């Protein structure tokens, strides 16, 4: 069959040439399709390679996470506060005037900078977001309150844990 067509096209007959063009187009479409499939299939491993691995639960260990860079001495008296970290995230820990230890994930709910403890309020230097000491956004661009964490001291170290019901704050 293909042999006949070859003979025809090399003979230069008009029908033969059109036939050869059609065959050529079909071959190109097939090769184009195969190449596209091949490229698509090889993009998948590249995409998976670039995709980040799922982040581990920060409280995986006994439902709590050790606090870094803040010691109990840093928050010993009312009105003291300091930025630190837990499981790779930022945390702001301070002691209220009533003596209660409080902790918030320090990532501002606006654009993600770490907020600063300023005695009466929590303040973000990037775009001027202001939160009160309950973590409620009271001025500036933040759309939501900060995420509160439960802070506690154990054997001279600070830990934070997820608060089961954020409303009890």
């Amino acid at each position, binding site marked *: 069959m293909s042999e006949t067509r070859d003979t025809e096209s090399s003979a230069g007959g008009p029908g033969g040439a059109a036939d050869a063009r059609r065959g050529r187009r079909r071959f190109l479409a097939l090769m184009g399709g195969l190449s596209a499939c091949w490229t698509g299939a090889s993009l998948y491993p590249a995409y998976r390679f*670039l995709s980040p691995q799922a982040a581990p639960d920060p409280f995986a260990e006994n439902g709590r996470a050790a606090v870094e860079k803040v010691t109990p001495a840093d928050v010993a008296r009312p009105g003291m506060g300091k930025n630190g970290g837990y499981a790779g995230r930022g945390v702001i820990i301070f002691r209220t005037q009533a003596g209660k230890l409080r902790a918030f994930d320090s990532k501002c709910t*606006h*654009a993600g900078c770490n907020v600063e403890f300023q005695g009466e309020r929590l303040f973000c*230097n990037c*775009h001027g977001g202001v939160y009160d000491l309950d973590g409620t956004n009271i001025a500036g661009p933040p759309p939501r309150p900060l995420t509160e964490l439960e802070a506690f001291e154990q054997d001279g170290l600070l830990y934070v844990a997820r608060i089961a019901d954020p409303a009890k704050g």
Partner: protein
Amino acid sequence: MSMDQRFVPIPSDAEDALPPARSTAGAALRAALRRFPIWPVIAFLRGKRVPQHRATAWYAMGGLALVFLAIQIATGILLMVYYRPSQPWASVQRIVNEVPYGAFIRSVHHWSANLMALTLFAHMFSTFFMKAYRPPRELTWLTGCALLGVTLLFAFSGYLLPWDDLSFFATRVSLTEIEKGPGLGPWLADLVRGGPDVTIDTIGRFYVLHVTVLPLAVLAIIGAHLLCIQLQGVSEPDRFAALPEREKKYRAFFGDFMIAEIPIWLAASALVVALAAAVPRGLAPEADPFAAAPAGIKPEWYFLAPYQMLKLFPGHLELIGLGLMNGAMLGALAVPFIDRAVPAGARGRIMTALGAAGLAGFVVLTVWGRLS
């Protein structure tokens, strides 16, 4: 005199244009032309001309941006010798404090980047107000927009690499904004960061973008952009095009205009060196992902406008601000498809007014962002 069959004969107009055959340059050029029959290309380029009018100086902006790009490539290659993506801050500190001329080369890279962005804005707005984007030059405009976008991505990715306080929070803010984008936002932010937060993994991604992906992209797009300009010639503003033919004055691009640009290029290079010497680029303390953002933190001037927008639209209004900024960028892409008439009609005048308003808004937001 018959040449060997293997060689191409030199066209007669080439013979007229080339230096004498007995000079070294003339002999070398003839030898090259006998081997590569590219005279038609050269003849075409020799015909390229620049309209001569009051605003001719603005035609120098594109070439000037290329000069700054060349400085970026040269200093960027040098910085890569000492930069370590696994020890970002320490390696930049070493460049600044220990490597001879390290602080200088880094400062040149910083200042040339700033001037390149500034020149591209000038280039874009000058072609905009001269209405050079109208058909048949849509692709020139689109590739130009892409080049501005790639330049800003260069600035954005390069900003993180020193891994100091400023770069860490600037990147975190930008990616948090991307994360808020509807639909694919969170997916894209995670993919760019390499996880839920900006970490040393993010450096790897930004480094690869900054030194391989974006350079390849910028060279490819510049090639397309320059090809458009060579094939279509320089656009003539309406007022110039309306002149009677004999009153139109042109300058040859390669023989005249480009040579006249050399002093501008030298002055621009001198300006970069002077700025780098007078205002060296500092290195803030190493990024501490746990510390509070430092007081008074501000982005570079070319990102002050979006920065100010972020502050102006609080809370849930923020999506409006983001929508306005993205709308302005998409609107810029649509310009050559909306304003098409030559000479400019009512649409053209509205477009000019919109562009002026956009420029004014950008300047006001930038100054406001700086002062606030």
